[in-house]
Every structure is written in structure tokens, then in C-alpha cells.
């Protein structure tokens, strides 16, 4: 009975009327449907959008790899420039001796210089790479004054110690020995390798190079060096502390004249160096 009545309700409901949307509404909807098909959001534009991200990622990766490779290619220069290699710094420390003092030092030095040339030959290929020369020019020029600034007030540290041979000790062909003997020579080699780094101005470079060459020649000419000369040469290149210790030793041995001369030389070399009262007493000099 209910089903029959439900059918009657459906019949009556359909008799209520068949309202329909207006023609304008139909037109608007159909036009929108056609526009959507023409614009094809699933077509070309979607394809472009689909490729945007992968292309961007690929571009970033390629760029990163390129930059990394470029940096790696240039890295040897950077290593040569910034690596704190003692062998390369020592020559610049050696240059701290004023150019005008070099000849006098050279005249007193009589150490055979063959090992120093060997050492120079060993060092040069390491730093004479084209990249190193190219890249180190500006930065080394910046670094060089820094080393110079430190010199007057800060006494040379352990890096300078290899320059101080024991009086009476013969130069050994070991690495330390080579470095000790080659102390004047690297000034030349560094000046030749990196002119901007080794010499701030051409005139200074020439003076420095001349000063550096002459001791070598003098050493070659004089042949075997005496212990005294070697000691004096050691004073020139030694740290202030070691120098003072040597003066104290001379004083203790009773070699007062040499001690006085050495101390006077020390004062000339390090006028600002402060000496404690106790040490001054041992040195026997005036403060």
C-alpha cells in the first residue's frame, strides 16, 4: 500500500512543474566548459609546470658542480698561498736583516753554500708553479707587511731556530741543515719566484737581492768558516733569547770582549728588546 502511495507521491511531485535554468545560465556554463577545454590545463601548461621543478633542480645541480670543480681547480693556488709552510716563511724572516747589513754579514760568513743551493733547488719547484705565482701575488703582498710588522716587537719564534747552528757544528745535509745554510739564498729565490710578495718596491727588491747574493758569494770565496764567524752568523739569524744565552755563555767562559761585542750587536739589532735585571746581571751589560 505504501509503495502504491509512494508512486502516487512521485506522480504528483512530477506534476508540480519542470522548472529549468535560464538560457543565459546554460550559455554561461557551456561557454565555461568550452573555455576550460581550449585552455587545456592538463595539456601544454601543465607540461610546462611539470618541467619547471626538474629543470630548476638540474640547473642548480649543474651550477653547483661547475662552481665546485672550478674551486677545486683553483685550490692548489689557495693551498700554496695560505698553507703555513715553514720553509717558505723562513726566507722572508731571513729578509728581515736590513739590506745594508747583509754584506757585512756575508763578509764574516764563510760557510760553504753548496747545501743551501741544494735546498733552494728543493724548495723552488714547490712554489714555482704557475698557479702559485699567479694567485699568490696579491695575497702574498698583503701577508708580507704583516710579517714585517711583527718583526721589531715580536721576537722570532721557533721558526727562526733552525737558522742558529751551534758554534763549531758543521752544516749537515739534513733538512734543518739545509735550511740553516740556505738562509741568505731563499731571499733570492723568493724574490725571484714572487716579486710582489718578496719585495714591496723594486728598489728594495734589488737591495735585498743584492744583499742576499753577496753572502753566498762571500761564503763560496772564503771556504770553510771559523767557529767565531759561524757564531756571529748564528747571532744574526738566531732568536734574541738564544743570542742572549750565547752571550751569557761567552761571559761564563771569560770571553768578555766577544760578549761585549755580541751584546752591543744585539742592542743594535733589538733596541726595544726588554731584558730582565737578572739576565742583565748575567750579561754584564747595561740596560
Amino acid at each position, binding site marked *: 500500500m505504501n509503495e502504491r*502511495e509512494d508512486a502516487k*507521491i512521485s506522480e504528483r511531485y512530477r506534476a508540480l512543474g519542470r522548472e529549468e535554468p535560464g538560457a543565459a545560465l546554460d550559455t554561461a556554463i557551456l561557454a565555461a566548459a568550452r573555455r576550460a577545454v581550449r585552455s587545456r590545463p592538463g595539456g601544454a601548461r601543465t607540461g610546462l609546470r611539470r618541467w619547471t621543478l626538474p629543470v630548476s633542480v638540474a640547473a642548480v645541480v649543474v651550477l653547483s658542480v661547475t662552481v665546485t670543480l672550478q674551486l677545486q681547480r683553483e685550490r692548489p693556488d689557495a693551498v700554496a698561498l695560505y698553507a703555513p709552510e715553514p720553509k717558505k716563511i723562513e726566507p722572508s724572516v731571513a729578509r728581515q736583516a736590513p739590506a745594508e747589513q747583509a754584506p757585512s754579514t756575508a763578509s764574516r760568513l764563510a760557510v760553504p753554500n753548496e747545501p743551501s743551493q741544494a735546498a733552494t733547488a728543493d724548495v723552488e719547484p714547490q712554489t714555482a708553479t704557475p698557479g702559485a705565482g699567479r694567485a699568490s701575488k696579491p695575497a702574498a703582498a698583503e701577508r708580507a707587511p704583516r710579517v714585517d710588522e711583527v718583526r721589531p716587537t715580536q721576537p722570532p719564534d721557533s721558526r727562526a731556530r733552525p737558522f742558529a747552528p751551534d758554534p763549531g757544528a758543521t752544516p749537515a745535509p739534513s733538512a734543518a741543515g739545509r735550511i740553516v745554510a740556505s738562509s741568505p739564498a731563499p731571499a733570492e729565490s723568493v724574490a725571484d719566484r714572487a716579486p710582489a710578495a718578496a719585495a714591496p718596491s723594486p728598489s728594495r727588491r734589488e737591495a735585498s737581492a743584492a744583499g742576499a747574493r753577496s753572502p753566498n758569494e762571500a761564503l763560496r770565496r772564503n771556504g770553510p768558516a771559523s767557529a767565531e764567524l759561524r757564531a756571529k752568523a748564528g747571532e744574526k739569524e738566531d732568536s734574541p733569547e738564544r743570542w742572549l744565552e750565547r752571550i751569557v755563555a761567552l761571559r761564563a767562559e771569560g770571553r768578555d770582549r766577544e760578549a761585549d761585542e755580541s751584546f752591543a750587536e744585539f742592542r743594535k739589532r733589538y733596541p726595544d728588546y726588554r731584558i730582565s735585571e737578572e739576565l742583565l746581571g748575567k750579561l754584564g751589560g747595561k740596560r
Partner: protein
Amino acid sequence: MEASDEQLMLAYQGGDAGAFETLYTRHRGALFRFMLRSIKERGTAEELFQEVWMRVIEARARYAPQARFTTWLYTIAHHRMVDHWRRRGLSLVSLDEDDPAFEPAASPVYEPQRQAESRQELGRLLAALEALPEAQREAFLLHEEAGLSVAEIATATGSNEETAKSRLRYALAKLRAALTEQGENVRSG
């Protein structure tokens, strides 16, 4: 043989604008009446009707024929209606229960049609339909206009079959009462 709604929608998905036109022609009247008799305001009904079709157009790329196109279409329509009621501060759920104050009321909207028909009977039916709770009226309209089964009504309205069946039963009972002038019995039951 005519293409099914699902085939037409897939054809439209593939870029065939003519398929959409066919599909639209098939469903425009029923969907519009569903909207009109749910909302009761022609302007709002037209607005929602257009929104539903726009959603269909926009969602064509995601369409997958997992159910009848009609069910999918009226699911969209249901959601638009819910949004509409929410905007108006009304809730479809709160009107889901049987209304104890069920009382047929005269409607001025369809006066011209009623004059052409058995004025008294159709008037009572229409008034009873408009007086139905929203959920019951929606279930009845989905059944009558869209031809959905109870299960499909449940799917379209996001409810379970029992609820959909109950809503439809209540709606039919009230309309039946209005037609047979036995509304007093239905209300007391």
C-alpha cells in the same frame, strides 16, 4: 546506443566539449529543480547550480568513474548546499530529526503551476515538501529528481544507508499524509 554519463565525462576529460554539453543537457533540469526546491530562492538556486557545474568542469581532470556520474554530481551539489546553509547560519544536521511542528504551509513561489493543476492537492504537496526538514527534503529530492537509490543517497550526503533510508521514509510519510490529509496521524506517530 547512447553513451553513459561516465563515458561522456571521460570524453570531456579528454577534451571533448560536446560530451559535456550532452551531459549537461541530461542533468541540468533535475539538478536545477533539486537546488530550487531545496533553497526555495531562484536566484540563490541558480548561483549554486552554476557553482556545481563549475566544480564539475574544474574537477574533470580528477574524475574517475568509481561510482555513477549522477552520484558524483549530486555529492558536489550536496556540499554546495551544506556550504550555503552554513553561510546562512543553519545546520543540515539540526534539521535532520523529525520535526514535531510539521505543518503544511502555503508557498507563494509556485503559484502559477499550482493554478494549472489540482490546486488543492498540489498545494498541499508542495507546502509539505517545503516544510520538510532539510535532510529529509534532500533525501526525497535526490530520490525523485536524481533517481538515486538509498545507498547512493547515503553516498551523496555522506551518511550511512540506515540514516538515508530513515530520512527518505519520514519524508514520504509526511508527503503522503499531506496528500491524504492524514497529517495528524503522521505527526502523532
